[in-house]
């Protein structure tokens, strides 16, 4: 949603910019104009880089400026009070005795080398921890994404077509339930009902502890077990992923259903739909070729954002199901004051989100010429 308003801005600037390029080019040779789509992509890319820098700066600020003393957070208060020299040593080793701007510079230099520091919780490099956690989140996200998009588009468009009927009301109430339920509670309910009571699916974790994870190729157990020709591991992994996947799907459905319904209703009320009806096109054609098509762009935008949000790890669901993904890692880091861990996961999550957005923007630019040229 944030994107629809936002994507219009750079496009609005493009005429002057185009004129500037033309003027500059016209000075030496014939005016050379880049394809508007290329110009649009380049512009979006620069915005992207700017945003990544901003995200890095914010995480730096949050983890280096905000906490009173990150070094003291590592050891207990009693030790810190009685042995100031230990605190000083830790501060020195962490580089905290350097002035802030030097730390900022070092931080960004390390970032560019892919060095996110060492986690005080796992004592591993944060980048390696995150690389291990990411496939778990990716695996879950893909399944949830496919389910959510299919179901919400179906229900949302259905509600829009049957606007103000009983069916619409039922779908609306369903989506309100999905929005209004606390995520951790839904996860626990699912856990209690389908695992504890009914034993339909497996509970926490990604695999039974009696099983050995398949050799790592992608890090996604479902894919790896298939590649390894291991049906036992595959069915077990599938049974483990069901509950977190269904929970997350349910939690994400509500807002997306409402958004699809709203977009379709707006397309329905637009002038081009009215024009198509006035032209005498059959109702079905109008619905499919005008209403659905008109609604597809905002929906594409929104689903992109949803995927970005999913990839950043569903903190609550992953925590309840001990799904060892990005969300659970961020939670563990945050609650044990592992600053490098928090910083790293925050950064990764932000960067993923920015790049997903970038790709969605490009897709919109390809699909809709209005987005790229004003």
């Amino acid at each position, binding site marked *: *949603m*944030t994107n*629809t*308003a*936002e994507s219009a*801005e750079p496009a609005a600037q493009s005429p002057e910019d185009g004129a500037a390029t033309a003027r500059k080019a016209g000075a030496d040779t014939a005016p050379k104009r880049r394809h508007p789509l290329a110009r649009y992509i380049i512009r979006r890319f620069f*915005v992207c880089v*700017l*945003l990544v820098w*901003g*995200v890095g700066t*914010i*995480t730096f600020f*949050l*983890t280096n400026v*905000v*906490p009173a003393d990150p070094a003291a957070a590592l050891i207990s208060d009693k030790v810190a009070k009685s042995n100031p020299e230990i605190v000083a040593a830790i501060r020195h080793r962490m580089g905290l005795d350097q002035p802030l701007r030097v730390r900022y510079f070092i931080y960004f230099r390390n970032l560019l080398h892919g060095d996110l520091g060492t986690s005080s919780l796992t004592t591993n490099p944060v980048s390696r921890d995150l690389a291990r956690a990411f496939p778990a989140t990716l695996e879950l996200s893909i399944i949830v994404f496919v389910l959510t998009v299919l179901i919400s588009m179906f229900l949302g468009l259905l509600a829009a077509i049957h606007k103000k009927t009983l069916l619409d009301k039922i779908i*609306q*109430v369903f989506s*309100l*339930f999905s*929005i*209004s*339920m*606390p*995520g*951790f*509670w839904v996860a*626990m*309910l699912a*856990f*209690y009902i389908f695992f*504890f009571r009914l034993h339909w699916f497996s509970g926490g974790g990604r695999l039974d502890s009696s099983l050995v994870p398949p050799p790592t190729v992608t890090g996604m157990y479902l894919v790896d077990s298939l590649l390894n020709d291991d049906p036992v591991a595959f069915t077990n992994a599938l049974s483990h992923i069901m509950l977190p996947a269904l929970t997350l799907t349910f939690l994400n459905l509500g807002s997306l259903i409402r958004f699809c319904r*709203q977009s379709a*209703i*707006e397309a329905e009320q637009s002038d081009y739909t009215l024009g198509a009806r006035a032209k005498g096109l059959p109702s079905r054609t109008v619905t499919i070729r005008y209403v659905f098509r008109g609604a597809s762009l905002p929906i594409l935008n929104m689903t992109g954002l949803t995927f970005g*949000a999913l990839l*950043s*790890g569903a*903190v*609550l669901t992953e*925590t*309840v199901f001990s799904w060892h993904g990005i*969300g659970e890692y*961020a*939670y563990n*880091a*945050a*609650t044990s*004051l592992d*600053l490098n861990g*928090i910083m790293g*996961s*925050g950064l990764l*999550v*932000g*960067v993923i*989100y*920015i790049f997903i*957005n970038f790709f969605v923007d490009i897709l919109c630019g390809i699909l809709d010429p209005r987005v790229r040229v004003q």
Partner: protein
Amino acid sequence: MSEQPVSGLMPFAGLRRRLRDNGFLKSLRTPLGIIGVIFVAFWILMAIFGPLVEPYDPLAQEFDRLQAPNATNWFGTDQVGRDVFSRVIASARVTIPISVFIVVVSVCVGSFIGALAGYLGKVFDEIIMRLTDIMFAFPSIILAMIISATLGPGLKNAVIALLVVSWPSYARIVRSMVLTLKSSEFVIAGRLIGRGVLSSLIVDVLPNVLTSMLVLLFTDFGGAVLMLSNLSFLGLGVLPPDPDWGTMVQNGMGNFSAWWVALFPGLAILTLVISVNFIGDALQDSLDLQNVTSHA
């Protein structure tokens, strides 16, 4: 002044007129609207008169541990023998005022910044908008988690975290509304008779965005309740032993045979949030403000 869409001297006149013309009260007379009003009224009463209703002290560990719901303890007892019903009621006293505070403050701060950005335009606008872009790159729960973890767990820091996380979306919404209003004739006329930026914003612009802001305030209250209980569930909000729905559910997580410990506080969140959303939907329908939220 009387020719302006809404007079600045009576900022709520426009709201009142629209509520009357659109039959707001009538729109609440749907089944969902009635359910919403009943539950919201219930929880507000509980937040105010809770101590009179609670049968027992929410902090006292005076019963046998993990009793299933029965005549004495309607919602059972928890691991240390506290009455779950009393604790569920007592949580309303913390959650509801704090969530109202979060929404009101972040709407005010966000609207002010957004209105300035939209009105002043140029560099200020650019800086604010890029800043909101960066904030949006973090999912709000992760950002709130990072902030409250670095500040240290506790209710005060959780509130700060939620304020920091939630102002940007209001700034965006108000900015886009101000952008459309800025070039309207009555605002320009106001500037021509000598109003400065602030007075123009307050007298001419504010009354015209107020209705939408109030609706937003209402619909986002539910979101604030959810976020606050999320943080509490993660151990970064209300700290035990203080009663809170999020921490209570967390408490019940390890022990599934005692389902009542986690079920009732969750139901409390659900009933409060969904009834607020029922009313919010009715409000949006009657004011025809569906597009308010899609500005973001």
